[in-house]
C-alpha cells in the first residue's frame, strides 16, 4: 500500500532524512515517533507532495509521489503540524471550499458536510467562524477536511500536540473511528504513549534514520533482556556503588534520589543476574532490597533513541 524507498532529504549540508525505508499494508495505523527535529514532518511533507526529496521515492497504491504527484493528492488527506484557517469563513463553508477544491459536486457536498461535522463532533459549530474555534476544534475540523474526498490514506502530523487532555481523548476517539473505517493512517508524535494504544505499528525515527519498526509488542520485546534494577541500601556506601559499577551488563547507573541506593539498567541473562546478587551479598554490602521494574513505553522510547547516537 505505502512504500517509502530510500527517502533522503538534505537541507544544504544537513541531512534531515537519511535513506528511510518503510512498507505499510493497507488499513495499518502507523505511529511515527521521534523527538523534535527527528524528521517526522519532513517525511510527511514529502509524502504529501509538498517537499521535493533529495533522493528516493514514495509509492502509494502503485502511484509514485515523484512521477504523479497530482494523482497522489487524490489518495491522501494531509493534516500539517501547524496550519491556519481562513478568517471570515464559517465551519460548513470551510469544508465546502475544500470539497469544491477536490471537485466534489455541490449536491454531494451538501450531504457530506453534515456527516463530517457529526463525525468530528462539530455539528453545533457549523455556523461558527473557523478562526474563532478553539485549537482542539480547529484540529478536528481540519481532520474533517482531510476526509472530505474520502482518501485511502491519512497523514496526520502531530494531531494531538497542543491539545488539553480532554481534547486529546476526543481526537483519539475520532481516530479510532477512522481506523474502523479501514483507512491507512500515518500519525506522528513526539510522545510515544499517546500513540501506543491506537497504533498497529510503530516506527521510531531519530536524526533522520528509522531505528526501529514493528508492532508495539515487538518494540517492547526489543528491549526485553533489559531491565531497570533498583537496589536500596541501608547506608550509602561507596563500596556498594563501585561494586555495581564494575559488574558486566550494568549501564546508566545512578544514585537514588531521596533514598540510599542505586538504580541501573541491566542487560545480562537471568543466571548472570543471580550470580551478581549472590556476589553482592557475599561481599557484605548493606542491601535492603533488590527490585526489578518493567520498563514502560516511554522509557523504551527514550532508550531506543539514546542508543542511536
Amino acid at each position, binding site marked *: 500500500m505505502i512504500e517509502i524507498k530510500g527517502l533522503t532529504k538534505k537541507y544544504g549540508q544537513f541531512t534531515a532524512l537519511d535513506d528511510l525505508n518503510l512498507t505499510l499494508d493497507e488499513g495499518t495505523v502507523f505511529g511515527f515517533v521521534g523527538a523534535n527535529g527527528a524528521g517526522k514532518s519532513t517525511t510527511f*511533507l514529502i509524502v*504529501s*507532495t*509538498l*517537499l*521535493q526529496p*533529495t*533522493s528516493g521515492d514514495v509509492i502509494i497504491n502503485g502511484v509514485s*509521489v*515523484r*512521477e504523479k*504527484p*497530482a494523482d497522489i*493528492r*487524490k489518495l*491522501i488527506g*494531509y493534516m*500539517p503540524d*501547524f*496550519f*491556519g*484557517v*481562513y478568517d*471570515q*469563513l464559517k465551519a460548513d*463553508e470551510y469544508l465546502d*471550499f*475544500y470539497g*469544491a*477544491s*477536490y*471537485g466534489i459536486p455541490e449536491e454531494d457536498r451538501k450531504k457530506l458536510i453534515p456527516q463530517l461535522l457529526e463525525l468530528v463532533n462539530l455539528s453545533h459549530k457549523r455556523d461558527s467562524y473557523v478562526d474563532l474555534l478553539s485549537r482542539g476544534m480547529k484540529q478536528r475540523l*481540519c481532520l474533517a*477536511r482531510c476526509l472530505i*474526498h474520502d482518501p485511502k490514506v491519512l497523514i496526520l502530523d502531530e494531531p494531538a500536540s497542543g491539545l488539553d487532555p480532554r481534547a486529546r481523548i476526543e481526537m483519539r476517539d475520532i481516530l479510532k473511528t477512522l481506523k474502523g473505517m479501514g483507512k491507512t493512517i500515518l500519525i506522528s508524535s513526539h510522545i510515544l504513549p499517546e500513540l501506543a494504544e491506537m497504533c498497529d505499528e510503530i516506527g521510531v525515527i531519530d536524526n533522520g534514520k528509522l531505528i526501529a519498526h514493528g508492532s508495539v509488542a515487538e518494540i517492547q520485546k526489543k528491549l526485553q533482556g533489559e531491565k531497570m534494577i533498583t537496589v536500596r541500601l541501608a547506608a550509602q556506601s561507596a563500596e556498594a556503588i563501585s561494586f555495581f559499577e564494575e559488574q558486566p551488563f550494568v549501564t546508566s547507573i545512578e544514585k537514588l534520589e531521596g533514598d540510599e541506593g542505586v538504580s541501573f539498567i541491566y542487560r545480562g541473562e537471568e543466571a548472570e543476574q543471580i550470580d551478581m546478587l549472590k556476589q553482592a551479598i557475599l561481599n557484605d554490602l548493606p542491601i535492603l532490597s533488590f527490585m526489578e521494574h518493567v520498563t514502560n513505553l516511554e522509557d523504551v522510547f527514550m532508550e531506543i533513541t539514546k542508543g542511536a547516537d
Partner: protein
Amino acid sequence: MNFTNPVLFKELKLRFRSFKGFNGILFFLLAMCIFVFGYIFLTVNLTGTSYFKPSQSFVLFAFLSYIQLGLVLFTAPGLTAGSISSEREKQTLPILLTTSQSSFQIISGKMLSSVAFLLMLIVAGLPVYSLVFLFGGISPGDFVKIFLFLFVTLLAIGSIGVMFSTLIRRTVVSMIATYGMMLFLSVVTGFLFIIVIQMKAFNHMGTPVTSPSYLGQFLASINPAVLFATFLSPELNRSITEMTKINFPIWAGYLIFYGIVTALALFIAVKKLRVNMKRLK
C-alpha cells in the same frame, strides 16, 4: 478542463463579506462624484457661462480616464501581490496545495478574484462617465478604447503581482517588488523615453538623425500614460513617429508587450506554485 473555480468563488465571497469591498466601491464612487460635480460647478461659475461646453466635457473625460488608470495602477498591485504569499504567511497554503486543484486553477482563481473586484470598481464608475456623454465631446469609440486598455493594463499588473507573490515568501517584499515594477513601467519608461530621444537628437553635431530609434519606440509603447495620451489626443501618435522615425501604432505595441508580460507572469506563477517533485538534484 474544469471551469468551476473554488478559489475564485471563495475569495469573492470573503471580499464582500468583510465590507472592505463595499467600502472601497462606495468611497471611490463618492470621490468621483465630488470631482465631477466640483469640476462642472467650478467651470460654470468661473467662466460665467450658465452651461457646460463640450470642450470642457472632454477635459473632464480625460481627467476621469487618468483617474481610472491611476486606480488600476495603484490598486492592482495591492490586490494581487499578497494573493499567494499571504496564504503562505497564514499557513493555509500547504493545505490548499494538497487539494486536487491544478496550479493553473489556483493561480487563475487568485488572479480573477482580484481582477473582478477592480473591474467592479471601474464599472461602478460608469454612471459618472455617462454624465460626460450627456454633455458631448466624446465618441463612444474613445470610450471603448480606454476601457479595453484599462483592462489590458489591469491584467498585466495583476499577473505581475501574482507572480511576485508566488516567487517571494513575504507579502511585504512582494508588494514592494510589484509597486516597483508598476512605477518602472508607468513612470521610469517615460523618463527613459525622453532621454533616449534627446540623446538621439543630439548625437551628430547639428545634423538631425534619420535612423529609427527602436528603443525609443519601445519605451513609448509600454508606457500606459503615453498610451492614454495618444487616445485623448491622436496627434501625439504623429509626434512620436517623428521622434522615433518608426511608424508603428503605440496601442499595438502596448497590446503585444503586455500580452506577453501577462502570459509569461502567469506561466511562471503556475510553474513555481508547487515544488517540482520530478526533478532530481
